[in-house]
């Protein structure tokens, strides 16, 4: 069994403060996990803000160099990769599709550029063809996107274009950092379902970073839960979320508000308070 992605005791610390009072802040501490090459899966990283999940994503993408430990792609340290070869294997999707695209640039140009740089397309026709194939995989087509600017599309459509752009490079791994938190409620599930289809039909592995436990339960195969840079719990997604053992995981699970938690704060509402208005006008 060879590993597609392999994190070996990866840590990252940042220095904070001035010249005389420098402190080291550990953002990620000794995180290890591996994704198998021949078993595509959606691997979820859950954690609150400040838990180090985005730093972890940046290290996998080679944007940050780990302070210690190694991130290996196909057995090779990502810091030793040629960037262009690396980006053909691993592609990112970011949180806010409105910020990810330059508002003054037509969307199809992102697709063509990615096709030529990382997708191995030579010439305009090949790039257009690759862009169209990728857009059809996300339920759009080049005819709809050609010449359009970001403001002409909705958040859900833009996020699909962002996913199509990542697919143009024909990567083996996609790193999605909070991909649905800025997408409209009625469109969110179509993006999440799209990730499931990419895994099942294209055999892509996806590292899905989120703080939304419900979608993690819905779509992911395995997950890790991070708190302050440390992995506190890991395992098969549904097993872990159905019966979390670490106190922090339990706290997270109990804090999720769903339609079933109706009246969590309403129960204390008393009729007596209704009868006496607090302030007289």
């Amino acid at each position, binding site marked *: 069994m060879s590993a597609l992605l392999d994190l070996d005791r990866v840590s990252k610390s940042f220095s904070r403060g001035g010249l005389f009072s420098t402190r080291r802040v550990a953002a990620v501490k000794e995180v290890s996990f591996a994704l198998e090459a021949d078993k595509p899966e959606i691997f979820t990283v859950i954690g609150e803000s400040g838990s180090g999940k985005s730093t972890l994503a940046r290290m996998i993408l080679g944007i940050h160099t780990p302070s210690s430990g190694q991130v290996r792609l196909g057995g090779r340290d990502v810091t030793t990769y040629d960037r262009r070869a690396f980006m053909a294997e691993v592609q990112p999707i970011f949180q806010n599709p409105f910020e990810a695209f330059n508002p003054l640039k037509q969307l199809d140009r992102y697709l063509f550029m990615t096709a030529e740089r990382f997708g191995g397309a030579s010439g305009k026709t090949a790039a257009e063809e690759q862009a169209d194939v990728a857009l059809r995989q996300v339920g759009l087509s080049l005819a709809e996107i050609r010449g359009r600017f970001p403001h002409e599309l909705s958040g859900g459509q833009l996020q699909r274009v962002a996913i199509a752009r990542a697919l143009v490079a024909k990567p083996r791994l996609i790193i999605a950092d909070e991909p649905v938190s800025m997408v409209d409620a009625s469109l969110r599930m179509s993006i999440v379902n799209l990730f499931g289809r990419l895994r099942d039909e294209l055999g892509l592995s996806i590292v899905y970073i989120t*703080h939304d436990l419900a979608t993690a339960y819905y779509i992911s195969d395995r997950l890790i839960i991070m708190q302050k840079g440390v992995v506190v719990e890991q395992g098969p997604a549904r097993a872990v979320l159905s019966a979390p053992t670490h106190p922090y995981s339990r706290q997270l699970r109990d804090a999720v508000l769903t339609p079933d938690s109706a009246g969590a704060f309403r129960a204390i509402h008393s009729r007596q308070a209704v009868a006496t*208005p607090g302030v007289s006008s």
Partner: protein
Amino acid sequence: MSGAAEQAPVLQVRDLQAHFRTHYFGVNREVRAVDGVSFDVNRNEIYGLAGESSSGKTTLIKTIAGLLKPPLEMVGGSARFSFLPDWDAVGRAPPEVVRAIRWRHLSYIMQGSMNVLNPLRRIKHSFRDFAWRHLGGSKAEFDLRAAAHLERVKLDPSVLAAYPHELSGGMRQRVTIALATICKPEFIIADEPTTALDVVVQKDVLGMIRTIQQEMGSSVLFITHDMGVHAALTDRLGIMYAGRLVEDGETPEIFARPLHPYTRHLIGSLPRIGDTEQREGLEGTPPNLATPPPGCRFHPRCPLAMSVCTTTVPAMIETLSGHRVACHAVNPGMAA
């Protein structure tokens, strides 16, 4: 809620219309961000407003609060507060009247706490800026009062001396709640106050909003797109789609018996832990409000759409007791 029903509502919104009007180079453009919305908010209740981005919920509360700046204009209808009986909308009252009620009777909890608190001023200065005018007293008295009030949201009085960047997101949001409630206002508008917080902190902050609201007996207009938050917190709930209210009623009733197809989708599409059923997103996209679809604005995406939906705006009808819905499939033959 029978006790509340006997009293006049604190806020009565009737057929409110607010449009963005621009005219550049001889081209007039009108975006109907709020188009004929009517609802009541009773005393001592939390009324929730749900809707996705660009459904007009922020424009609606701006209009209700009288924060009208061109190109946003209040075109028609009224939004009458019980503490401002002489004017049919805050935005139509003269500035000195608005200044007197703002923060004393009507306050806000905003979304980005970092944008509300001046980054160059200590928290106590922010408190003085907002509330001293209304509460009066000497500076020392006021600071003591602010410190006492901070304890209600479980913050240490030393927070008063801090700058906003020294506090965590959850603490800052609690400061903005304390700021909004120190004058014991009758009406609080909360615009996505917990969206930027993570789930554990969010639960704390929501519990705090409920506790303070009950202590003071105020009314809260609570806006978020998160249906889980609405289920847990609000007493009554209104669902907005493309600038119009499509359904409203008591929250448990809406979750138990959603009538409008859009509400049904919003509730039905939420994944839950422990439930592995396949859930689908809605086809299509929210409409552009500069050129909204005719008739019912939801019809291009609606699974129940009929020919009447493409031509006639459905009326908001009370179908069940206290539960109103605007849909031709639910109320046949009722045009607005």
